[in-house]
């Protein structure tokens, strides 16, 4: 292999400047942050919550924050490279779709930081790319447990997932494991709709679960999940059916049926990461592991954390113990899922 003088000098200067560690923005200039989304910023969930982090950064003079939405898979790499060329200090790819594209782009811009809201891949990653484990499976396990605890009929509880990806499949299993381990004898059921944006199909998934005997349903399906909530609210037997929201506080969508919502603290994730880049504490090449109680917040509108007319104090108390155990790592969700798969 021939090494040109130019590439040798480039490599030497890179090593001298600290390898692939992102450099702090120049003095007096705001940290430039961009959020990249394949969805939209007003989806009422996944995209919107992350965008709220961008809005918080905009209110802080230390940052210049912007976003790009509706990016097709074919455009992901091109868009990421474009913002890198424009000198953005932090490029946040919101979703697993950005994983391989940012891994490709990042080595070419060693002094800029990249963050992917997805699990770290199994191979080594550049030191300027960080991933995050958002505690999906712990949250899904907790949701299954809470669903089982607030079920009146104690027959079955259901989960509705979005795209048919390994993350959603595993969330379904974690939900089922949480329900069945918390209330022995109850059945945990799950439907993967194959789509994050099809509210009509979400509604029918909810109807199907209700028709099968489920009286508590949780979704993790973004816009499809909005249909799930409507499916519960519009169902002929809806008087006895409860629903739990996901990603954001969805109480206003079905106030009489929404027991609680598992809200993702995505805005906090965005601001924490941006702060780390600005303060030069960003540690790429790793996966960040916030605990489930930091990454997921329980909200029920004006009720506080849960709707007391749908969740008994006793059920909530039992759930709180489980929630605390999950946060402390005392419950092995992976083992529970593995046991279910056998």
């Amino acid at each position: 292999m021939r090494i040109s003088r130019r590439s040798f000098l480039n490599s030497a200067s890179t090593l001298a400047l600290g390898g692939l560690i992102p450099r702090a923005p120049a003095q007096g200039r705001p940290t430039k942050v961009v959020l990249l989304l394949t969805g939209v910023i007003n989806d009422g969930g996944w995209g919107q919550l992350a965008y709220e982090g961008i809005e918080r950064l905009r209110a802080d003079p230390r940052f210049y924050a912007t976003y790009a939405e509706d990016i097709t898979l074919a455009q992901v790499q091109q868009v990421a490279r474009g913002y890198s060329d424009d000198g953005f200090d932090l490029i946040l790819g919101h979703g697993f779709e950005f994983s391989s594209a940012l891994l490709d782009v990042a080595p070419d811009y060693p002094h800029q930081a990249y963050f992917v809201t997805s699990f770290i891949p199994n191979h080594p990653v550049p030191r300027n790319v960080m991933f995050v484990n958002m505690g999906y499976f712990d949250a899904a396990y907790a949701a299954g447990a809470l669903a089982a605890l607030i079920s009146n009929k104690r027959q079955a509880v259901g989960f509705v997932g979005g795209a048919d990806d390994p993350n959603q499949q595993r969330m379904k299993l974690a939900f089922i494991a949480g329900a069945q381990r918390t209330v022995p004898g109850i059945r945990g059921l799950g439907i993967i709709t194959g789509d994050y944006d099809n509210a009509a199909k979400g509604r029918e998934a909810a109807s199907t679960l209700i028709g099968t005997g489920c009286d508590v349903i949780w979704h993790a399906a973004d816009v499809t999940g909005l249909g799930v909530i409507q499916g519960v609210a519009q169902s002929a037997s809806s008087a006895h059916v409860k629903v739990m929201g996901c990603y954001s506080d969805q109480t206003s969508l079905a106030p009489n049926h929404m027991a609680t919502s598992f809200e993702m603290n995505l805005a906090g994730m965005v601001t924490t990461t941006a702060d780390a880049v600005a303060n030069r504490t960003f540690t790429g090449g790793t996966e960040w592991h916030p605990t489930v109680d930091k990454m997921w917040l329980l909200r029920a509108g004006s009720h506080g954390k849960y709707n007391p007319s749908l969740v008994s104090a006793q059920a909530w108390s039992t759930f709180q113990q489980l929630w605390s155990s999950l946060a402390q790592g005392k419950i092995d969700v992976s083992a529970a899922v593995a046991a279910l798969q056998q």
Partner: protein
Amino acid sequence: MSVFSQAFLVTWLTAGIRLGGPVLLAALGETFAERSGILNLGIEGILLLGALASYLTSIHTGSLWLPLFAAMLTGFAAALFLAWMYVTVRASQVVVGLVFNVLALGIAATVYRRTLAHASPGPIAMFQAVHIPWVSDLPIVGPTLFSQTLPLYLTLVLVVVAHFALFHTRFGLGLRAAGENPRAADAAGISVPRMRYLGTLISGAAAGLAGGYLVLAQIGLFRDSIVAGQGFIALGIVIFGRWSPWKAALAAMVFGTCDALQLSLQLLGTHLPEELLLSIPYVVTILAISGIFGGRDVRPAALAVPYAKEA
């Protein structure tokens, strides 16, 4: 629960018919456009604009029927622009239709964000299932066919109207002639541009109405991604239905029930891969429109071919 249990059948078929409703309405309109020789690929965008118009109207009026009318009117207005591009300008129908869908998404996202995104208005008033005495209580067919919403019944009535209009009126004859052999139609004194304008306008009005149906009878909310390809599915249903309203109705219900079947089968523990179950409606549609089972001969001969009268 087994596939032969009443609960399974009722849940599956009811969901299937509900899923097929808006797609059928859009497909009915598209049948008119395609019978006249216009391939209106812009119906995905029109569905979205119709959905937005109905949602905004519902928020401001609280009415159920006025939003449906607003959706239809919006679809009509959008189709007027498309018809001008297709018929008068004689632009490529494929390119105009596809680009219009992108434009419609931009318009819907902008209008929604400027007017409502920060207000979070939540769900609107929706059409409820109608309980028809006696028949709604019949086993299986009662809840499946006779406990649906008014927009579905309206759509089924429109199937009859569309069939009559296309195959038993002078207007229908002229429309079909414009799509089969525009030169011969012209020689017979039929105004081909007029027929094609009418076909596109009917298609737009129906697609707008389908968007309203989606919001007012199924979801009760608006997001700029809610149409989720249903306009494109309607295009497939037109081919699946061999450009006939009756067959389109059958095709839409087959698609809807296949779509709902994969939801129900996931709960049965069939051990079939979910990827396979999720693909059922699309595999059925692709096979149906492939021409393997016949039907190529009923495609309007001048579909997507611009027409210019010889000097």
